[in-house]
């Protein structure tokens, strides 16, 4: 059974559809890069999956459980948002304790994926209000990977991270994928998409334009680089659409 299923999922804000008629299935152990221009519906798709936004049409299932039902399905979900802000006066260690409490995890706060690698173990007594943007992203990454998720949602995960930390994060993504986790990742960096994606979902004006593997995209266009092949594919599809009309 597919790990994540979108059935005719749509979201309307006033007169505008941020996402419409999305049908997609994401399998265990695959990494899907969700790409598209600004305002194309990437964040809405992610927020619908996480239960932060209530879809106007259709449904979403994670591990066979509906997203807008019992929140217990989120035990299986990890999320790293694009921008993280935490309570200023809490310490990093206290934030991890809170999340461990919520997830009923008995793990030591200094243990777990990426804690040592990103240097978060050395910052446990630091107040969250004093952290830089990059340090907040590291804390966010630790929380996303911490509870062995079967679905991991990463929104521009390397934005704001130094190159070494970004590389460590991408290596962690490859590791968790090997363990059978489904990873959804939004990124504007084509190198990241090429390095990680098993399939690429391209959204435009709230509609899914295609959901193909990198090989299918490059094969269809004859171009080797995704950064060139994707625009070429979109142009070809647009021309075909005009001709059919």
């Amino acid at each position, binding site marked *: 059974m597919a790990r994540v299923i979108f059935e005719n999922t749509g979201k309307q804000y006033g007169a505008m559809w941020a996402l419409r008629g999305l049908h997609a299935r994401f399998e265990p152990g695959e990494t899907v890069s969700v790409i598209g221009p600004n305002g194309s519906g990437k964040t809405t798709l992610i927020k619908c999956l*996480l239960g932060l936004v209530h879809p106007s049409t259709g449904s979403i299932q994670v591990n066979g459980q509906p997203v807008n039902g019992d929140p217990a399905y989120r035990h299986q979900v990890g999320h790293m948002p694009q921008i993280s802000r935490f309570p200023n006066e809490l310490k990093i260690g206290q934030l991890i304790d809170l999340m461990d409490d*919520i997830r009923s995890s008995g793990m030591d706060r200094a243990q777990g994926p990426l804690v040592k690698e990103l240097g978060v173990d050395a910052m446990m007594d630091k107040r969250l209000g004093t952290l830089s943007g990059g340090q907040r992203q590291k804390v966010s990454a630790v929380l996303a990977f911490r509870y062995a998720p079967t679905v991991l949602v990463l929104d521009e995960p390397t934005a704001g991270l130094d190159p070494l930390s970004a590389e460590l994060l991408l290596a962690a993504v490859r590791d968790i994928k090997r363990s059978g986790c489904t990873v959804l990742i939004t990124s504007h960096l084509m190198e990241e998409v090429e390095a990680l994606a098993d399939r690429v979902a391209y959204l435009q004006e709230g509609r899914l334009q295609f959901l193909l593997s990198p090989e299918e995209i490059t094969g269809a266009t004859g171009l080797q680089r995704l950064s060139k092949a994707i625009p070429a594919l979109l142009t070809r599809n647009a021309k075909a659409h005009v001709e059919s009309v």
Partner: protein
Amino acid sequence: MWKVYKYTLIDLARNKFVGGWLLLLLAITAGLFQLEDQPVKAMLSLSQVLLALVPLVSCIFAIVYLYDALEFTELLAVQPLHRSKILGGQLLALSTALALGALLGAGLPLLIFFPGGASLTLALACFMLTLVFTAIGALIAIKNREKARGVGLGLVIWFLFVLVYDAVLLWIMFAFSDYPIEPWIVPLAALDPIDLGRIMVLLKVDLAAMMGYSGAIYEKFFGNLRGILVAMAALAAWVAVPSAVAFKAFRKKDF
């Protein structure tokens, strides 16, 4: 809910504004009793200041805190938690921090400088108004996406309750004094939580006579235990109704 409550309270306990609020109340209360020769006059001035300031600070602080915590609330909302538990924890922690500030900053010195029923009633009124306006602030923060708009709305609502509604009520009482409007005055006063607090305190300071016609009506109703209990029930409803609407809105909220 208690996990969210505990860690939100830890954050609030270290918040400079909450500490500053406690010290400000302490300075105002102790200062007024030191400056006035007659404690009853200090008590009267203090009730005017506190019954205006406590709702204002509770409402605006709740709005600003919840807006600033939006990304953290999102982080909690993607955890395996019901949304009602997230808001319950946050609202309870905000109410606890602000109510403790009001009780320790104003209630305690009041009971030291002017022990008696009047001080106790004022402390109780401050406590209830803290809960009422924290709930109203939470509702505003949930229903409005923009912080500036939320704060502006909070100020407008506070101004309506602290001044405008009172003035309208007085005008109604004088304009229709020839008619039998007494049965309507108390229910109309209950529609403004600040007015309710003000009436409860003034009656306890034995200044109802100075309030003239309205004072006589209020004294007749609120001058006994039953009246006080009804006033407290009305204030409790002022906590429950905005809280219930806030919970409903939070369950449906799109982040």
